């Protein structure tokens, strides 16, 4: 469980936050309606004026005043009546308003209560849902994590195996290359050794044959003769055959004699080279 929490700190935080918010809402509530207030009433003002000539006018005026007074009385009567009626209406309306307000308040309270209950229920359901969700999520997460871990482990294993294989292949390749290089170096070294020895032996042969070459006096410079010489492994001259005659018997003979007189010819010590030296072509060509 601790591990789960540990690994899902973010989810946990979110859950706690949501709960706190719900609690706050439940404690303070929200009143969604305003209270209704009665409107103010304004009083009416009265004035009187008398004259003879203006008696008629007065009488008239009195009459008129009488009349007016009566009319005013009637009007006052009417007004009083109207006032009483208005007051009764007002009283009635106020009671009605009061009743309506009470009703409204009652309704409001019921609504509030219902809403709160609903909210509570909803919150509980939400909580439950959240818990459920969380649980599912956790399980899913757990499973996902397990799967991921397994996948990761498998991938890692695969990667490691591949890496190992690669490393192995690389090492083998390197080893093979090193071996090849070594062989190459050895071959090169041998070739160089052989070349050196070959050149040395060729020079030695040349010297020995040169020393033994006695050509006829007055030999023209333009003569040349090629012979093929087969040698035994120890350098003994087995066969001397002319492959390109100079056209001059004496010169050709001097060439054959030179090789025969130089018998045995120097031979390389390396067995690889010996075979090369068993068959040599000599070109005899006097230079001034």
């Amino acid at each position, binding site marked *: 469980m601790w591990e789960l929490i540990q690994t899902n700190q973010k989810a946990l935080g979110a859950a706690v936050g949501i709960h706190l918010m719900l609690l706050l809402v439940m404690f303070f509530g929200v009143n969604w309606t305003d209270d209704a207030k009665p409107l103010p009433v304004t009083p009416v003002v009265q004035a009187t004026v008398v004259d003879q000539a203006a008696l008629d006018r007065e009488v008239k005026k009195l009459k008129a005043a009488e009349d007016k007074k009566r009319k005013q009385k009637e009007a006052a009567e009417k007004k009083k009546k109207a006032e009483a009626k208005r007051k009764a209406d007002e009283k009635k309306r106020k009671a009605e308003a009061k009743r309506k307000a009470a009703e409204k308040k009652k309704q409001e309270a019921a609504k509030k209560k219902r809403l709160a209950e609903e909210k509570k229920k909803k919150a509980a359901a939400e909580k439950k849902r959240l818990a459920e969700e969380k649980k599912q999520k956790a399980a899913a997460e757990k499973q996902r994590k397990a799967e991921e871990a397994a996948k990761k482990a498998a991938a890692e294993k695969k990667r490691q195996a591949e890496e190992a294989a690669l490393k192995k292949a690389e090492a083998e390749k390197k080893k093979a290359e090193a071996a090849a290089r070594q062989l190459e170096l050895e071959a090169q070294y041998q070739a160089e050794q052989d070349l050196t020895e070959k050149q040395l032996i*060729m020079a030695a*042969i*040349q010297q020995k*044959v*040169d020393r*033994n*070459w*006695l*050509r*006829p*006096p*007055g*030999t023209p410079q333009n003569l040349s003769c090629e012979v093929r010489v087969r040698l035994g492994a120890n350098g003994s001259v087995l066969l*001397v055959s002319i492959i390109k005659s100079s056209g*001059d*018997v*004496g010169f*050709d*003979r*001097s*060439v*054959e*004699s*030179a090789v*025969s*007189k130089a*018998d045995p010819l120097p031979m390389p010590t390396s067995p690889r080279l010996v075979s*090369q*030296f068993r*068959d*040599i*072509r*000599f*070109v*005899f*060509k*006097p*230079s001034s």
Partner: protein
Amino acid sequence: MLIKWVQTLGLSLLLMVSAHADLTIEITQGSEGALPIAIVPFQQPVTGAPTQNVDQIVTSDLARSGRFQPLPVADMLSRPVQPNQVDFRDWRALNVENLVIGQVDAKGPGAFDVSFRLYDVYRGEQILGYTLQTSADELRSTSHRIADLIYETLTGNKGAFDTRIAYVTSIADQTGKPTIHLRVADADGYNPSSIVSSSDPIMSPSWSPDGQKIAYVSFENGRSSIYVQEIYTGAREKLTSFKGINGAPVWSPDGTKIALTLSKGGNPDIYIMDVRSKKLTQLTSHWAIDTEPAWSPDGRFIVYTSDRGGNPQIYRVEADGGKAYRMTFEGKYNAKASYSPDGKQLTLVTRVGEDYRIGLMDLRTRDIRLLSTGDLDESPSFAPNGDMIIYATRNKNRGVLAAVSTDGRVEQRLVLQAGDVREPAWSPFHQ
């Protein structure tokens, strides 16, 4: 992969093959020199041994050629006669390349069998072997033939030892009166015999190409005439005897003509005479002296000496006439030219300072190489194989014959002939 392998295989095979074929070594130094040879004294018959010593004749022939350097008998470690007595190591130790052994067997009165074998010492094999039947009289000639066989085998050139020379010699009798002889001898100077003798001068012997006749100039009866004489019968024929000079006859290579010098036109010019019809054709016509004609081996050209340029030089003209072409420009005296048998060289007499020497002119380069060292050397004549030249030189105020190899390495006087010897002419090959 397979292809690559095949390619690789093919390549390596190729490399192997070429590696074998490509191991080439050039030999350019060496040295030039006469071939060391050993001629072991031939075994003589117990009784009736001939007076001539075959091995010595062979030895001196080969030595005289300049091509061979015979080992002195005293230096020999062994003296084998039979093949089974030959130990090549003995001869290799002495650096001898060739070995000759042999024997002379008496086959009745004055008759002999001469057997010899020639060996290649380093290859350890016999390369020549003959038995020749001969007589006491022919033993020298037989010896020369053996030398010829050895020479030809080892040099590739035909030997000219079994040939002859003609020369003129003047021999004074007790009273001091000279007799002039035209003599023929072996090429080494032995066996001389006179074919003409006269109290008057004899000059310019010339061999016919078949070696049977000699043309020469004789002053008998006080005037010069050209004769042709058969060597063995002595029969002779007078060819020309014009007023003035009749000189320097020389046979054409085919033997049908003789070129000669006549002054019947007022001054010496070259003429050609048909030997059979005796018809004469004038070849040169110049106020200067034209003389000493010689044929090229193919018969196309004639070289001669002329002083038309102020001093004697060699000129050439086509044998059927044409413009003269000067051939020598070196020095103030070049004369008596004749062609080598291969037609590539001329031998001539050239003056060097105050001395007259034998020269050899390369016809390609026109360079003249001196062959002799005397102060009055004259009348050079090629051996028929072209390897040697015989000429006359002075020794203590007396004319003698000398031979020199054409490479100039070996110059050797021939055995002393009696008298004052001049004008040698080497014969053609023995036929």
